[in-house]
């Protein structure tokens, strides 16, 4: 059975502490809402496409003070057509933060660097076959019918339906999986309350949540209905 992880999972933040803080700050200000599509072998080409576009955007942003003009140019039509949410999220960020000076462009580049690092991290994870799916069909059925799986899907649907940015989804909790947990060959999808996540000191609590939320596959969601 081929993997069931599809492209309908959004990645809001990775386990990278720096990125998490950055994302939580931007969420707090409500000015920045970047979403990346995640994460399996099927999505590798998509991640790499995004990497190409965002890298070129990053280098071009260095040479301009008017990031809006840059992103509005026809040149980024392919990104706009293929990933309208991501394009819109980046554009919103530029508009809301008025990226029109050298100093502000520096911040924009920093954000792009965070995203590029996340993509690197994700590609690295999914490139290792041992860490990828699938599970056996029997195991998949068992997981799919489990209460925890259903509640995760419901919870996730609810969050996405409400566009509830007070909660952060961690698409791939690789760090904890490999360092702290016994499920070293699985990917997980978890949802953590933003406050727990921001207070990174509360490692034990986060680990406990993760342990209780482990599932073996990721739910499929209706992404088209998400309003950004």
């Amino acid at each position: 059975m081929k993997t069931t992880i599809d492209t309908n999972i959004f990645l809001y933040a990775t386990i990278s502490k720096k990125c998490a803080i950055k994302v939580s700050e931007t969420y707090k200000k409500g000015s920045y809402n970047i979403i990346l599509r995640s994460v399996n072998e099927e999505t590798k080409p998509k991640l790499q496409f995004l990497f190409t576009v965002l890298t070129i955007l990053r280098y071009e942003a260095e040479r301009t003070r008017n990031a809006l003009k840059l992103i509005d140019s026809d040149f980024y039509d392919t990104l706009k057509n293929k990933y309208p949410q991501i394009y819109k999220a980046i554009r919103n960020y530029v508009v809301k933060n008025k990226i029109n000076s050298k100093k502000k462009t520096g911040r924009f580049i920093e954000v792009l660097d965070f995203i590029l690092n996340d993509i690197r991290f994700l590609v690295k994870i999914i490139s290792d076959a041992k860490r990828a799916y699938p599970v056996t069909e029997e195991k998949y059925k068992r997981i799919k019918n489990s209460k925890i799986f259903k509640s995760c899907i419901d919870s996730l649907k609810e969050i996405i339906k409400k566009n509830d940015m007070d909660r952060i989804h961690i698409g791939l909790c690789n760090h904890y999986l490999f360092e702290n947990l016994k499920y070293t060959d699985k990917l997980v999808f978890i949802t953590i309350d933003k406050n727990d996540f921001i207070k990174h000191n509360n490692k034990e609590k986060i680990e406990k949540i993760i342990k209780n939320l482990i599932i073996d596959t990721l739910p499929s969601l209706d992404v088209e209905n998400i309003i950004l």
Partner: protein
Amino acid sequence: MLIQQTIPKEYSLFTRLIHDSVDKGYKNKRTQRVVYFRIDVSILNKLISEIINKNKRYNFLIKEEKNFLKFALRMFDSKKKYVSFRDYVTLIQHSFNSVLSRLKRIKKELTRLIKKNRFEVSDIDNEYFFSLENILQQVEMIDKDLKAKDWFKRTDKVQVINKILIIFKNLNELALSIALNDTESISSISRSILSFDKIQFNISNKLVS
């Protein structure tokens, strides 16, 4: 759309010989000097002459590669028996610059084509771009560390230089595999990049500490 750089076999062989010196060097007990090249340097000189002649016809060398060859030619010409540590370090730095510049050139060319096609390129091209960008990022980090630390002045310089050469050797192989091979090499390049983190961290940490 993959970028194929034309690099003749002679140049590839020459750079491999330089980088292989890391495994071949030994200390002469009588003179107490390190002999970096076990092969007769006249062979290296001959090889350089062949590369230069070929370049006159096909013009494939970039500026940094020419500097690398010029320095090597001068060094091997004047010192038939021994290569000093100082010269060896300079040679390696030239080699490093030439590999780095070659990678940057490949990336520049690929970026130009991607831009020309407005990102409508194949998955392989994107993977290729991804690999290149990551190599360059890693290499630039190492380069920065090296420049900041005067790596060749360290007391354990022979060990340090060996470690650095291992990195250069890997890089050179990557640059050559990008330059010489076709799409089949992409997955192997990607794999190398993914394991490259480890090498970089190991070496860089040791240098900085």
